[in-house]
């Protein structure tokens, strides 16, 4: 095992040693004018300079300057989200404290007595539904979509993901999956020496971490409405 | 007789058995005899001679010193070496006593080896001497 894992390293070392020795030492022997050597190095240096300027200006990539979320922060988010969800499942909706943010809300006039929640979806979309019984009958179902942070490898994608579609038709509240979001991105880093002092992952603890973001739908229903389907009753604290 | 200037270096034959400083001093003597350097005139410095003959200045100095020891040259402090008034006489005397004498000795020796009689030798010398005297004039 050790041998196999060392082999590529050794091969690279040998390769570099070979090239380094050849490219440098051959200058001693081969007939080459000193001027040419200076040209090669000079041209390369200018090329990289131009490349640096271009990569800063002409290709304005999605820059995530100082938005990179550390691993610690990410797992804090993860824990906070799970804690709230778990608590809610047990019947208590704690203070959201910014862990979840309301992405969208709806108001549906409703005069029926029974409400069926249908969150069956062909796209395999599932969101927790929490229901709070309002103290009075005001004939309005208030629905809200809350989302926790989606962090993939330190980048916040919460904004990318949309809310589900919710509508109330007769006595059925349907939850339809939001549009599919497919994020395909390329990530650059200057290298471990640059990561070491900028609060990014250091070279040895680099792991691809992410929080996929929990979400839930909070329904506030009039006092007399009976709800059935897949949901939890909660009391807000 | 000597081709001064131009290619002076050719004059000194380093293959010849005479040490170079002797050759230098002989060259200076000849310069004095030919009156290229006159009485109370400054002679070449050791550095000039070294450059002329492509030799070490110390060797050139030795050549000068031989002449100084023989009173052909005298030293003026801080100015260099000058030709003495009686330089020509000294040189002529020396050449007669040493150079000519040793040449004659060689001549006699060769004559004996070749079985040339005294009269015959003298005759040869006489005729050649007169012929060359005429040529030189």
């Amino acid at each position: 095992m050790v041998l196999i894992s060392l082999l590529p390293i050794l091969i690279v070392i040998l390769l570099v040693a070979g090239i380094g020795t050849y490219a440098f030492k051959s200058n001693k022997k081969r007939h080459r004018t000193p001027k040419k050597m200076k040209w090669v190095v000079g041209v390369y240096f200018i090329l990289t300079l131009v490349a640096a300027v271009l990569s800063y200006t002409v290709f304005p990539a999605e820059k995530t300057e100082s938005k990179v979320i550390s691993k610690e922060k990410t797992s804090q988010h993860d824990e906070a989200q799970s804690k709230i969800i778990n608590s809610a499942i047990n019947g208590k909706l704690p203070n959201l404290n910014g862990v979840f943010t309301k992405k969208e809300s709806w108001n549906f006039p409703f005069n029926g007595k029974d409400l069926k929640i249908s969150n069956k979806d062909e796209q395999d979309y599932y969101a927790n539904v929490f229901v709070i019984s309002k103290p009075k009958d005001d004939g309005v179902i208030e629905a809200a979509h809350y989302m926790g942070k989606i962090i993939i490898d330190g980048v916040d994608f919460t904004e990318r993901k949309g809310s589900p579609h919710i509508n109330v038709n007769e006595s059925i509240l349907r939850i339809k999956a939001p549009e599919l979001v497919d994020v395909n991105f390329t990530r650059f880093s200057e290298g471990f020496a640059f990561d070491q002092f900028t609060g990014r992952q250091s070279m040895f603890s680099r792991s691809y971490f992410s929080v996929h973001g929990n979400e839930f739908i909070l329904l506030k229903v009039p006092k007399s409405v009976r709800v059935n389907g897949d949901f939890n009753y909660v009391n807000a604290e | 007789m000597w081709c001064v200037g131009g290619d002076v270096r050719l004059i000194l034959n380093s293959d010849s058995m005479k040490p170079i400083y002797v050759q230098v001093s002989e060259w200076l003597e000849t310069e004095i005899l030919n009156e290229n350097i006159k009485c109370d005139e400054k002679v070449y410095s050791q550095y000039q001679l070294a450059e002329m003959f492509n030799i070490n200045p110390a060797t050139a100095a030795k050549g000068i010193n031989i002449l100084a020891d023989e009173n052909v040259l005298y030293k003026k402090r801080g100015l260099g070496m000058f030709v003495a008034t009686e330089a020509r006489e000294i040189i002529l005397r020396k050449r007669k006593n040493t150079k000519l004498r040793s040449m004659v000795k060689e001549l006699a020796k060769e004559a004996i080896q070749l079985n040339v009689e005294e009269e015959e030798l003298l005759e040869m010398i006489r005729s050649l001497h007169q012929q060359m005297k005429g040529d030189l004039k």
Partner: protein
Amino acid sequence: MKVVECKELTKRYGKAKAINNLSFELTENKITGLIGRNGAGKTTLLKMIAGYLHHTSGDIQVFSENPFNNLKVSANSIFIDNGMSFSPSLTLEELLETSGEFYPNWDQRLAKRLFDYFSFNPLQSHVNLSKGMKSTFNMIIGLAARCPLTIFDEPTSGMDAGTRKDFYRALLKDYIAHPRTIILSSHLLSEVEDILEEILLIKNGEKLLHMPIEILKEYSIGISGKATAVSEWTSNKETIFTQSIGVDGSYVVIKNDCSLRDLEIARDIGLEVSSVSAEDVCTYLTSKTKEGIDHVFN
């Protein structure tokens, strides 16, 4: 003032002694020729003087300091040989400029004029030069640096005859204008003897002689004639070299410590007395046996 002073200097490589118990002094502003055969230890000695190598025992002082790893010695001396290493990243012109930065007495004008005289291409790299051109370039640096101690180790190797002559002439002229201590090593004495003041002859790392070159020329005399007569006459003298000529002739080189009377006796018994060139003296002194290469064929 003594520039180089060695006392019982020894340099050992394993068991072999490259330099063995060598003692000598070089005084200021002289051109000294370090002469010896291949492998005599010339380069080892020069590198010790330049501070490149350390000695095994004895003592070596350059400018009254131990030269090894010594900044003062390095700043005031220059060691020129054909192993000088120059970066290929610099052009010849840049190398001259760099030398100028390091050596305070550097004469850029002289360097540039020599550079042009030997028609170097300023944009060329040192690695691309031929052996002779390398030697010539190194020589320019050695001359223009005008270091108080200038060491040339076999400076003319690879140079053509014309360039050699030019080099020795340039060396002499610059030396006359700016006297300094110069050590010149060579295995060819005839080429350098005229410009030398002193000669240091070594063999197997040991000093054979160290004397003014003019004295060396009178150091020995050659005697030739009938073998019996020669051997009889030279029996009580220090012979340096013997060679048989023809059937019963022989040529013997002896140390010149005989009186004029002795020599006249030699002449009278039919021996021929000749002087021996410095080059020949050195060859004889440094040869493996007194008979020279003939020994192999006897």
